[in-house]
């Protein structure tokens, strides 16, 4: 029933847990495909440009971050593609999810306490509120 799955990932532990659940959703469904989406915001852009020689290096570093997730998906034999998009994480994921008519969006929760959440804002919360598709927040 979930054919088009969006997996938001930044390569963190939470994102890897989310990947496991995304694969569970895709399990035994030959039509399932997963878009692994990595959002790069302005500050990350600045840091990546400063720390790498050129755009090829930057590209590679970002893909490297997702290697573990990618391997998991690959091993499960599910169709996938990696998408790096630029912008604020929350709105960018929402935009991508809504534009491409995903059936479900899977995202890791960072597990912040209430103060951190007030200060940092929760990406998963924003996505859950504004995406048109069902959202699975993985703890």
């Amino acid at each position, binding site marked *: 029933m979930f054919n088009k799955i969006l997996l938001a990932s930044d390569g963190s532990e939470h994102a890897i847990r989310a990947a496991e659940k995304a694969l569970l959703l895709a399990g035994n469904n030959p039509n399932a495909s997963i878009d692994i989406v990595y959002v790069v915001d*302005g500050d990350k*852009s*600045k840091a990546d440009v*400063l*720390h790498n020689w050129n*755009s090829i290096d930057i590209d590679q570093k970002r893909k490297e971050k997702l290697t573990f997730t990618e391997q998991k998906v690959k091993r499960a034999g599910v169709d996938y593609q990696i998408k790096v998009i*630029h912008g*604020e994480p929350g709105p960018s994921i929402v935009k991508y999810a809504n534009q491409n008519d995903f059936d479900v969006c899977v995202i890791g929760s960072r597990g912040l306490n209430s103060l951190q959440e007030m*200060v940092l*804002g929760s990406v998963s919360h924003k996505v859950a509120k504004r995406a048109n598709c069902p959202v699975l927040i993985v703890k």
Partner: protein
Amino acid sequence: MNLSTIKQSWFGNVRGDILAGLVVALALIPEAIAFSIIAGVDPMVGLYASFCIAVVIAFVGGRPGMISAATGAMALLMVTLVADHGLQYLLAATILTGIIQIVMGVFKLARFMKFVPRSVMIGFVNALAILIFTSQLQHFANETWQMYAMVAGALAIIYILPRFTKVVPAPLVAIVVISLIAVYTGSGVRTVGDMGELTQALPVFLLPEIPLNMETLMIILPYSLALAVVGLLESLLTAQIVDDMTDTDSDKNKETRGQGIANIVSGFFGGMAGCAMIGQSVINVKSGGNGRLSTLTAGVFLMVLILVFNDLLVQIPMAALVGVMIMVSIGTFDWSSLKTLHLMPKTDAIVMVTTVATVVFTHNLSIGVLVGVVLSAIFFAAKISKVHVHSLMVEEGRKKIYVVTGQLFFASVTEFISEFDFKEDVDEVDIDLKAAHLWDDSAVGAIDKIVLKYKDNGTAVKVIGLNDESSKLVEKRAVYDKSNAKAANH
């Protein structure tokens, strides 16, 4: 560039560009004023510069969506010029900076950017952040507790407000709120008006009032060179960041020329030299701007604000500006480099720290960059000069083969020669250079020396496996393969 791409870069994103331009203009005002104060000139000099540079670069820049204006990096370089010789010399230096940058653009020097190592660039932004921060400390001297409280208040607003709304730039709100408090409590803290004049007029074309002679040139040239290099470094770095954020490419040589044109115009209209701004460009793209219209809007709206709100600008307390500058320095610093310092290659970390230390010590970003580049070049030469020589005996100990791996050049030859054993009792020696490369005369000389020494000892020597480039060099410069050769020829 054809008409449709020009149209796209100007009107491809009208709504986003205009909104982002307005946000940037608001954020530019306090920075332009504060950078003027750092340079030691009237606030109008920085504001005029920001207006001229932003408007001109919108038309002639190579990176649409990037914001250029008066910057901290440039302001810090001008301090002594302004203090020793005054504003007119700064304007002349600004024009000369522009000319140098145009020449650099015409000769396509932007490609040499790749020779500036990343560790130097990280050192550059970190040093810049530290200098902006320390330049604010003088404003705390002999101040009242009200001033300290206002700085703290400004910082609190700047960092807490964005959690609730991002519609208006938090630094602007901080400035408005702190100004209101200062005016209504009559606390008498120092204001922008105390630091210099703010006139309510459009900039006009003026020739700098300086004697046009060699002496003047000698005064401004070192400053202009430093300004040109630092301006381009920050501009091209910013262009790369905007490239990445917008996932598009840009013409770096056009940008180099554009920066030059913008600085010339700025100098003639009473503005100081400037360059691209990392922070403002990130704000612009985040606010939805990515076209030339955003930069133009920022410049024009900045001028409108100066003309309309002139009376209010002079009442901004210095405390609020200091708060904004502290935010700018925190935002400029590359905090991730502190976290990864122990993971970096040791030489990279040394280069980074040396660059920062040099800048902080000399108060000159260009010297720091120069020292950083030279130091990393030395490290690179040291690293690459490690030559491995591996030897093996064949034919029952009658023949020895030396397999050489690495780069042979002036820095590596001494170690290379010491790897050979000339006293050994063999009939034949092969020097296998398949995995080596000869770069210069010293390398050829070293091979000569080795071959001739073996020949003197009556050992037959063969040099094998030279690659094309190396063998061309050998043909031209070596003597070992010519008759009656002597090592002394080198």
